């Protein structure tokens, strides 16, 4: 692999940039692999990377029906944080954030992590109490998070409407300083490049059509690029998990919904932190290019249509302008949607499935991007060892049968 560094940048520029090589190989699908991972988004590519790096399993293919990172990895609002409440969730999401903190060095690819602080506004006394509760829980779990008062919010976010007569008055905020944003494409590209270097075959434009099964095991996968025999199969396909599960012959407690986001035209750097208002479910940050990224609530009906609706634009923008009146004249540039896999307890599903050699990583719902390094680590462990990673045990599909839900949706006040 061609290493990226300041020296290589200078050297290549002296050679008029003619010496750069493609970041990953583009092999044809071989007839057989030890492990086939379905889904070439962040989670699938991270799984392949950690399989090779942590477990030495390199006869691996990642198959992707579109292009790398063209699903939810390229459709989120790039926010990372780990302010979850339950001990098992905190362990999972903080592992992801810690791995992200080291990822640029580990992958030799600048993912442009910018830990500029993630803020959840507090509008009333109920939210104040639950934020205090959360901060205490996070301290017990060894994850940093703090309360800041109204004056500190005003200092950090000077453009925020702090007037007493605002529709949603601001009493203070919850703040996780390690929260931040990442260049999302770089996560897919960085993992793809590092995995490819370790011998993983990444095959794009390769859609799964069905499975060949013997004795409750998948022996081969039929794809648009032909048949591929496999030892073990991992799936990391987010909103399309039910479709793959259906082909394999089981059901998941997942419903697919559309989650929309939008960006404004680029403007000068005026909004330094990520701000979420629990009153409206709207969150906003400014990219390093200057665009304002805005996301809001989930469309509540089942959908696989990867496109947005005008009523959601209207809802989001009215809330943003209520919070930041100065943004009213900014023009929208793009608007898009991704299909997220919503689970009743808003916690992921990790590990074995009813099919003996099929392991799953799904159910991250609206928060999959921030969890990519953890999702990859845990699915890789499951595929290599045949059993879930200790951190994934509470997140098995069997929890719905044993009624041991990890109801993070209620606990940490996930907006959707």
């Amino acid at each position, binding site marked *: 692999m061609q290493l990226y560094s300041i020296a290589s940048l200078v050297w290549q520029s002296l050679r008029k940039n003619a010496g750069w090589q493609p970041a990953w190989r583009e092999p044809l699908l071989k007839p057989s692999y030890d492990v086939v991972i379905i889904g070439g988004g962040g989670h699938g590519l991270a799984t392949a990377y950690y399989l090779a790096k942590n477990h030495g399993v390199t006869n691996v293919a990642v198959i992707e029906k579109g292009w790398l990172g063209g699903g939810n990895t390229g459709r989120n609002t790039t926010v990372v944080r780990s302010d979850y409440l339950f001990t098992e969730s905190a362990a999972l999401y903080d592992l992801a954030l810690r791995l992200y903190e080291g990822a640029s060095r580990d992958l030799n690819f600048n993912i442009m992590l910018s830990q500029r602080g993630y803020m959840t506004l507090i509008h009333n006394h109920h939210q104040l109490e639950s934020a205090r509760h959360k901060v205490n829980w996070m301290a017990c779990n060894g994850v940093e998070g703090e309360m800041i008062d109204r004056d500190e919010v005003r200092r950090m976010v000077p453009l925020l409407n702090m007037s007493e007569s605002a529709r949603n008055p601001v009493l203070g905020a919850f703040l996780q300083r390690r929260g931040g944003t990442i260049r999302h494409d770089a996560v897919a590209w960085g993992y793809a490049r590092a995995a490819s270097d370790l011998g993983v075959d990444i095959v794009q434009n390769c859609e799964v059509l069905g499975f060949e099964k013997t004795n409750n095991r998948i022996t081969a996968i039929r794809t648009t690029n032909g048949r591929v025999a496999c030892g073990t199969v991992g799936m990391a396909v987010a909103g399309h998990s*039910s479709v793959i599960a259906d082909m394999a012959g089981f059901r998941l407690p997942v419903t697919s919904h559309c989650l929309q986001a939008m960006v404004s035209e680029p403007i000068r750097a005026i909004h330094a932190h990520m701000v979420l208002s629990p009153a409206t479910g709207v969150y906003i940050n400014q990219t390093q290019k200057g665009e304002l990224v805005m996301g809001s609530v989930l469309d509540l009906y089942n959908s696989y*249509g990867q496109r947005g609706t005008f009523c959601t634009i209207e809802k989001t923008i009215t809330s943003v302008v209520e919070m930041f009146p100065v943004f009213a004249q900014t023009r929208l540039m793009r608007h898009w949607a991704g299909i997220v896999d919503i689970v009743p307890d808003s916690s992921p599903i990790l590990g074995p499935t009813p099919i003996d050699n099929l392991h799953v990583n799904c159910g991250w719902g609206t928060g999959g991007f921030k969890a990519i390094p953890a999702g990859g680590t845990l699915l890789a462990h499951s595929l290599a060892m045949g059993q879930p990673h200790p951190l994934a045990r509470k997140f098995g599909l069997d929890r*719905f049968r044993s009624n041991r839900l990890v109801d993070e949706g209620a606990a940490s006040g996930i907006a959707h």
Partner: protein
Amino acid sequence: MIVLRCPYCQEQRTEEELTYGGEAGVERPAPDTASDEQWTDYLFMRRNRKGLNQEQWCCSAGCGQWFKVTRHTVTHEVTEILRFDESFGSELAGPLGGT
């Protein structure tokens, strides 16, 4: 934007005036005789179809009645709107059959 005409009040409603009620035909098994698997399926497991989906909607900002719809989950094309006591034109086929 999903727009449906309520089969009870005959008014046209947009998705913001309606409430989605999940997949139609999820039947509650008899509590005394259902196995744990049947009960888990009833509570949590869904078909989550990509394609035609039979589902329930409520005219919540209007007459308040629940009704049934067949909608394509990719194109959002609506092919059937029925009162709650009416039956869908056909059972949707799927690899898992009628389970």
